[in-house]
């Protein structure tokens, strides 16, 4: 296949630095005090993307299923870590919880897209699997982080109602139902909104990329339709899984609100120093 798009050389990249120079000039002129951060951001952009490019190039050249699976495992773990980092309060158990949720949502969806919709043969072709997995995992990460975050704040906000329901004999899940619903809605909303406006307000990154690399727009939009649908599925599965599992963190097995719910990350320090409330729970 002949090159259908224009290559960017390192010299071209250097010239592109002028662009960030403009931004920095504005920052200095308006005393935004962002020049330093912009400088660091620029360096990080270069290092991170060049490194990822290098690694992906290796994986593409090797064209082995195990390298693709390893890449997926790393992507899912990093996403689980990020989703955990975005939570308030104690983070015990959240990394595993988020990683499992993201794994479930993305692997199921990825299998359907790669195996049934696109019928990629062999199934592990990195050219398809890696970018598609990247989109799915990224959205699943945002969804699970939002769902658990919102669930926790709703439980705090509705504490009196939740305990009233428990005191009447409700299970954790029954007592948490309104909070759970808010969490799931909050997590699904961005996906639903983007389905409403896709193509009208902005062109999605993948579609733009395909068009630049020579694909016909009429073909690119078909990919994008698949992408939108798979993101909806992955987000739904992941947020459900994350929110339901999170009930086990925010409630005790005896259908009580967990004592750490009202505290922040100081709870972990408290447990390390032999705090007793954590023990009477388990």
């Amino acid at each position: 296949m002949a090159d259908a798009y224009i290559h960017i050389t390192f010299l071209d990249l250097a010239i592109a630095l002028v662009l960030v120079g403009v931004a920095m000039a504005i920052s200095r002129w308006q005393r935004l005090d962002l020049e330093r951060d912009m400088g660091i951001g620029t360096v990080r952009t270069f290092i991170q993307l060049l490194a990822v490019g290098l690694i992906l190039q290796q994986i593409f050249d090797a064209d082995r299923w195990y390298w693709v699976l390893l890449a997926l495992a790393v992507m899912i773990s990093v996403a689980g870590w990020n989703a955990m980092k975005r939570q308030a309060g104690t983070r015990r158990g959240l990394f595993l919880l988020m990683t499992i949720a993201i794994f479930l949502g993305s692997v199921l969806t990825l299998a359907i897209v790669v195996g049934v919709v696109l019928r990629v043969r062999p199934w592990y072709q990195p050219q398809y699997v890696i970018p598609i997995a990247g989109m799915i995992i990224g959205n699943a990460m945002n969804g699970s982080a939002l769902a658990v975050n919102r669930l926790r704040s709703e439980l705090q906000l509705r504490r009196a109602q939740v305990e009233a329901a428990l005191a009447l004999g409700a299970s954790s899940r029954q007592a948490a139902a309104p909070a759970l619903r808010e969490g799931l809605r909050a997590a699904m909303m961005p996906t639903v909104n983007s389905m409403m406006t896709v193509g009208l307000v902005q062109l999605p990154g993948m579609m733009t990329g395909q068009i630049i690399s020579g694909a016909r727009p009429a073909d690119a939009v078909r990919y994008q339709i698949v992408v939108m649908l798979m993101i909806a599925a992955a987000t739904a599965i992941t947020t459900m899984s994350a929110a339901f599992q999170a009930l086990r963190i925010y409630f005790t097995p005896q259908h009580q609100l967990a004592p750490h719910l009202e505290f922040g990350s100081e709870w972990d320090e408290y447990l390390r120093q032999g705090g007793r409330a954590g023990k009477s729970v388990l």
Partner: protein
Amino acid sequence: MSTVATVPKLQFVAVSKERPVRIAGKLRDEPILHKVSFSLAPGEILCLLGPSGAGKSTILRLANRLEEPTAGRIFLDGQNIASLDVRELRRRVGMVFQVSALLEGTVAENIAFGPQLRQQECDAARYARMVGLGEELLPRPATELSVGQQQRVGIARALANEPEVLLMDEPTSALDVAAARNVLDLIRDLYRQLGLTVVIVTHVLEHARAVADHVVLLVHGSVVEDSPAGEFFTAPRTEIGRRYLAGELQGGEEGPGGSPHGRGN
């Protein structure tokens, strides 16, 4: 009244509770209850009295197992509540909260909430009548009622579970004098009609005097007096009891023996 041979309806045996409290950005276990023991006979009204912060509400939360004690045991009809199914325990030991914390939905839905958790039919109108709420209120959104009416919904909701023990946390504190008086009358009536065993937390002496058979005075997490109501109100056994009745004890007062924060174990 109770005889020596009766198994107590509810019994606390050396119950202690510590809870983490944030102090200067760090969490530390603070004693809330210290070796609390008391018991009440079936069909008794017990008033838990004491200055605010004495641990009265915590006793109710432990009896309903919204929280676990740090040490000690709690018995219902002679059975350790830790060995009972927690959801069945909560059906048998109902709870009415200080602020009624009604759920989204109508009055009828709130009242029927407990039975419906177990897929049981519930005649919401019957329980509404019991607490003196008109049937016309049943389809109304519960949170739009007056505070006094909401408190009655809270009581009806607990009664719909047909509990054996009713725990009431300051059931009159959010109400004006007239509404409080009505709720007290209601509690007395229900108690007579249903043979309930009732534990009421209050800091209003007058309300306790109006309904109590039995009084436990709690100061800084320790039981200071445990007496029949008549005896407590006329001749308290302790100096602290006398000072409490005289209105001299406030939340920040020093506890018994000068060491309010004595740790259990």
